[in-house]
């Protein structure tokens, strides 16, 4: 379990980093916290010719209130955001605590988790649920990629090989909205077998808006858009949630693996979606 030989670069600026990516393209891999990439290298499942280690680029480890939400630099660690979220952002905090263990979160970055795009990972689903985005830079410029366009498939995003994610943008919850975050994993700290992130806003005792992101249920995290639309205007009852969950679960195409069958994932997605919506609407304090 030792990586195959590679060329190593540790650029000191974003410009230098993207220049390297421009030169080496698909032969290069960005190294951030290393919590996913290093195991892949050690198993020789990934054999990049070039490693571009971004850890020595100054000024990228920020978490700031900006754009009516958070701007998170590419080197902000998961643990850093978790600490930040301890005070007043229980949704983020809960989601982050499901990511591995404290030691892993101390190294692992927010951007790295999103770039890695494991379909059973928490942070991509969170980004999707909150309608966030990432800023991608290449030697030819910068673009913002919304979460809905970002997650293409298993470990595949819309970020090009010559692009570096410089920032993750995470909008806040709509005013007064409640949240629910639930997952089933084999053990504490494992990737989810199935997970759900949900947000519900109420108005006059009815659902004004609902958002549901499911993870571990297919090749990429998914938004349950038809179910969300069906929920709007309904009363927040178990029956409503169950109908929406049935609708959403029916469209899922989960994979089977060593840990669970596709059938299991579909069934538990349904269960967790009902529970997460119920938790979110209980937490919501709609006007009136």
């Amino acid at each position, binding site marked *: *379990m*030792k*990586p*195959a*030989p590679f060329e190593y670069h540790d650029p000191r600026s974003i410009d230098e980093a993207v220049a390297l990516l421009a030169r080496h393209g698909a032969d290069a891999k960005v190294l951030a916290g290393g919590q996913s990439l290093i*195991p892949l290298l050690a*198993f*020789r499942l990934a054999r990049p010719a070039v490693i571009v280690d971004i850890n020595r680029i100054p000024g990228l480890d920020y978490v700031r209130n900006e754009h009516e939400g958070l701007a998170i630099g590419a080197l902000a660690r998961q643990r850093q955001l978790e600490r930040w979220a301890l005070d007043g952002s229980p949704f983020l905090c809960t989601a982050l605590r499901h990511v591995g263990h404290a030691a892993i979160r101390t190294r692992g970055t927010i951007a790295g988790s999103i770039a890695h795009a494991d379909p059973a990972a928490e942070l991509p689903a969170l980004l999707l649920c909150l309608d966030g985005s990432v800023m991608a830079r290449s030697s030819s410029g910068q673009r913002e990629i919304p979460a809905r366009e970002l997650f293409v498939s298993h470990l595949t995003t819309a970020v090009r090989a010559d692009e570096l994610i410089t920032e993750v943008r995470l909008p806040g919850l709509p005013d007064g909205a409640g949240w629910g975050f639930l997952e*089933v994993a*084999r*053990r*504490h*700290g*494992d990737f989810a*077998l199935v997970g759900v992130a949900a947000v519900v806003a109420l108005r006059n005792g009815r659902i004004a808006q609902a958002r549901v992101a499911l993870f571990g249920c297919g090749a990429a995290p998914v938004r349950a858009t038809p179910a969300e639309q069906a929920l709007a205007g309904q009363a927040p009852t178990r029956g409503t949630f169950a109908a929406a969950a049935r609708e959403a679960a029916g469209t899922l195409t989960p994979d089977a693996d*060593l*840990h*669970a*069958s596709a*059938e*299991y994932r579909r*069934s*538990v997605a349904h*269960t*967790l979606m009902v529970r997460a919506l119920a938790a979110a609407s209980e937490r919501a304090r709609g006007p009136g």
Partner: protein
Amino acid sequence: MGAKYFGAAVRRVEDPRYLRGEARYVDDIKLPGMVHAAFLRSPHAHARITRIDTTRAAAMPGVARVFTFADLARFMKPLPLFGAPPPGLAARVSFTMRQTTQYGLCKDVARYVGEIVAMAVADSRYRAEDAVDAIEVGWEPLPAVVDMVTASEPGSPLMYADWPDNVAVGFTHAIGDADAAFTAADVVVRERFRVQRYVGMPIEPRGVVATYERRDGTLTTWNSTQVAHWVQQGLAAALEMPPHKIRVIAPDVGGGFGTKAAGYAEDALIPIAAIVLGRPVKWAEDRREHMMAAAHARHQVHDIALAARRDGTILAVRDRVWLDVGAYNSWGIVLPYNTVAHLLGPYRIRNLHVAFKAVVTNKTPNAPYRGAGRPEAVFAMDRAVDCLARRMGLDPAEIRRRNYLRGDELPWDLGMPYRDGNPLVYDSGDFRAGLEAALRAARYDEFRRAQPALRERGIYRGIGLSGYVEGTAIGPYESASVRLDLAGRVVVVTGACSSGQGHETSFAQVAADVLSVPLEWVTVIGGDTSAVPFGVGTFASRSAVTAGSSIHDAATALREKIIRAAATLLEAAPADIAIEDGRVLVRGAPASAVPLARVVQASIPTFAGPGVASPDFEATAYHHVPTVTWASAVHVAQVEVDPETGVVALLAYLVAHDCGKVINPPIVDGQVHGGVAQGVGGALYEEMVYDEGGQLLTGSLMDYLLPTAMELPPIETVHLEHPSARNPLGIKGVGEGGAISPPAAIANAIEDALAPLGVRITETPVTPARLLALIGAKKTA
């Protein structure tokens, strides 16, 4: 012997170095000029090697040499085999036993994924792995033998062309008259239970470092092993060298659990490479290798039936057992017979019929792992007993009450031999009282009273029991030598090899009490063949009893010698000499007291004359134990099941156990806790999975799930001390017990929680997906 330390909760003397990160494991050994080995392992379950080309690999930068079977043919001897039945057992049970030959490097056919095909040695492990990648092998795949039950039947592809079938060990065994009992029974239950393949998985994988000194022909090898002397014997045979030229050192060992008590190819390959290359060689097993190359374990299928009377009395057990031993049968009858010998456990049952088949398949070879055949037996038996209880409308506690042996029925002779060939007689204990103690401590009745109201509210909680009686501390002996140095301090040397159990503390407690010296004066050395010429090693819950008894005997002999010398020095009769807190004195004359050091120093010859005694204050003992001594326990698990996700939460776990006299309570608690953790792994998490082609699917700890501290419930232990009369210390083994009962207790608890749905658990691990499928099947039925 004054019991000042024996039984006391003294702190573990080895802990500071572990806690400070100062422990020294094999991978910490670094020698000048050392090179590193990596192995090419078979990617196929079953395939013939048609060609190996190492030219490209050998020419790579930093590569010292690449070895295949042909390159090392003169060193290639079959790996050691264990487990022929001893005479006392062979006389009673007729075994069909076929053993297999495995070489350190694959000769022509690879029989499991992970079997070693070639070894590359280079100036770094990185480059050794690069070289391994560059070795070219031509493979001709052969049909894979995977499922143990079908593999045991006619028509299966054969693992070994010269065998009539794939059965490596076959036998039947009976006591009483099971047929008659089944005919006379009021109730019969039968079920098929499966225990998965799960393994020891020490945190420190295996590792070997070897260096050969040509000038004097000595080989020194560090090996992360539980059995330093066995490794030495194996090397003596393989290398045709006298044992005194081979020093095997087991330094700090980060867990063993039986995984490191087997004989492995790498034990010899690394020393061979060191000899051939004339340089020190290191191999530190990585986790990926460990998954496929270190011994696997468990993996049995039981078709078990119980016969009972209307009042719940169990009359007889019938069992057909299959054990998947993997590709090579290196452990003979050990696991099969362990299972049979532990099937009846605490139950008062006089009739048994077992038919056993240990089957070879294209998988990593099996070896004994913490419990070694017992958890499988207990799972089949205690699950079957719960099925019987349910069928009869009896509480699982009540059916056990009616069938557990009481203290006044012991000694209890099962009427069969134990695995060591001696009569199987439970020597001491009170299983019924143990059951009651466990039920009381776990507040079983309270749980039962609360259960219906919880169910009304949709909360599915269950409680499960399992008990075992375990033959511990198999002989025939362990070595120990106890001596004083010039300062009167004590050195204890033993063939036992700690892999974290706290030998340096427990053994020091025994020696310090016998010699009446402060505990801090005692240093315990294990795992070094140069320190004591003979030894066995640490496995089978044996070291406290076997090494402890030898330490007791040797220290007693040493004490007598000290007293004789002190009598001369102090000019008193030996009967009047006492040793107190490291000083010798004439009884009743405190002013006569001199430190032990004085006695040693006075024994060394001077120009003026010889000493008061010969200065070798040293005694060695090889205490022989008559047979195993029987420990026992009852485990109680409490769970809550989420019927919509199949997730099982462990709420509480209790162990009421008898390991005879307890030398050190926290150490015994630690042994129990660690065993329970591994048992929880077996119950809910761990499984080595192969596909139909014999490909290993669990290649990392992302796939093979060990429980962590987060998955474990609070574990309570109740110590019930029924001293053993089979050793001078009154103790029994406790190393394995914790791991024996959790799968049965937890499965019983889950079934109890879901009793309203009628779910039946027949296999482990009980994963959320499996459990939800069972619940779903009941709901739709």
